[in-house]
């Protein structure tokens, strides 16, 4: 049976857990440590924790909070947000985090990716790529929490990241973020055809059917979602949730 990881994505602002729509209008969800405890009890495959303010505020990671979250994780955890130096990456690994996720720093210093890969192995370094489509339909990479437009397109960025040593790519469609309208299948497919590392799809996931479609139609190795795992029904009812092993097994049986 092929097991494809289903990954809740948790967004940090300050010490709180938030969820955005299109990288905007952050909505307060609750206490991140409490949410992680619940996800841990539910036996989730992996979690991704992203500090969405760190790079914009030009500060480093909140190590204390990362440590508190990691100590509740009996599953793999990736952390991203504000990592610009090897020293910060080392510190994060030492706190019990398996993967560091680099986004904004990759454009400025791709050598950081190689350095982390050399010391911790490529499986320990993920490059995350956020992109948005222009009115003409051209996809552009954005950094600094979606505020800074880059000259690269996501497919090229993905190839550059893998060449630099990234062991995994975390691809987020900013247009789809928080919409729950399904993944950007064509873009994800373009990327998986160009790289031979695992690709995690993010942005737009709403249900198991979306997972099925993005896995089978775009060839991603893992699916990530935010809203789906923190809201039940509409945006007003916050509920930390995750599909049961029975539901997940039904999905796997179709792959």
């Amino acid at each position: 049976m092929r097991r494809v990881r289903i990954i809740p994505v948790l967004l940090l602002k300050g010490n709180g857990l938030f969820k955005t729509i299109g990288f905007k209008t952050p909505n307060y969800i609750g206490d991140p440590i409490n949410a992680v405890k619940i996800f841990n009890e539910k036996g989730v495959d992996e979690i991704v924790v992203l500090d969405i303010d760190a790079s914009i505020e030009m500060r480093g990671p909140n190590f204390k909070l990362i440590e508190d979250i990691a100590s509740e994780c009996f599953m793999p955890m990736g952390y991203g947000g504000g990592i610009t130096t090897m020293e910060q990456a080392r510190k994060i690994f030492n706190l019990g985090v398996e993967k560091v996720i680099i986004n904004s720093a990759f454009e400025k210093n791709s050598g950081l990716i190689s350095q982390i890969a050399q010391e911790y192995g490529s499986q320990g370094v993920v490059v995350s790529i956020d992109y948005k489509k222009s009115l003409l339909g051209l996809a552009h990479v954005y950094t600094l929490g979606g505020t800074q437009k880059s000259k690269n397109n996501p497919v090229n960025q993905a190839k550059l990241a893998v060449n630099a040593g990234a062991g995994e790519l975390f691809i987020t469609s900013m247009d789809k973020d928080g919409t729950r309208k399904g993944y950007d299948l064509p873009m994800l497919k373009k990327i998986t055809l160009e790289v031979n590392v695992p690709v995690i799809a993010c942005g737009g996931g709403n249900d198991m059917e979306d997972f099925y479609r993005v896995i089978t139609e775009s060839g991603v190795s893992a699916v990530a979602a935010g809203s789906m795992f923190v809201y039940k029904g509409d945006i007003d009812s916050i509920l930390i949730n995750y599909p049961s092993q029975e539901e997940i097994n039904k999905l796997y049986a179709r792959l």
Partner: protein
Amino acid sequence: MSIVIVNYGLGNLAAIKNMLCKLGRESIITSDVDMISKANKIIIPGVGAFGKGMENIKNMGLLDVLNQKALKEKIPVLGICLGMQLLTSHSEEGNVNGLNWIPMQSKKFVFDTVPKPTVPHMGWADIEYKSSHWLFKGYAEQPRFYFAHSYYINYDPAFAIASVVYGFRFSCAIEYENILGVQFHPEKSHKFGLTLLHNFATRS
């Protein structure tokens, strides 16, 4: 004396200590030769590059005490992920010699099938294991574990106590006398990892 998690400057040390703590087992993360020499069980953690791992073990002056504990005193040793690969004689990662405690080799994943499986191998997998082995006792359901690696150890029934298929079958747990290694991360595999670490921690 409690379990020593060897700190050779790499690896997710805190995660292993966390899980042992959850099991109510005391453990020490240390690179101190005296502390390691008093251990009655040793865990060699993972997450890192092979060459850097061996270089650190030598530069930190840990090689002699580790050889003493594993080969002379024959205390139970568990290598995890990179820690398992370090137990072998050699790795293609950086073309470096290992601790050479188990006569096997670590090789790079190369696939010639279409579509090619992605590398690193990342994610959860159901393993096949020797159900009679003490490391795997207590599983009521099929255990699954989290893997994250680009190098692997051949499947060889002489040393393998568990195996898994990713593109092809390879060893995901090996044993030679008192020395064991697992390719997956028990410390990040929920209840399945808890059971395995409990089995190691309570082994007399």
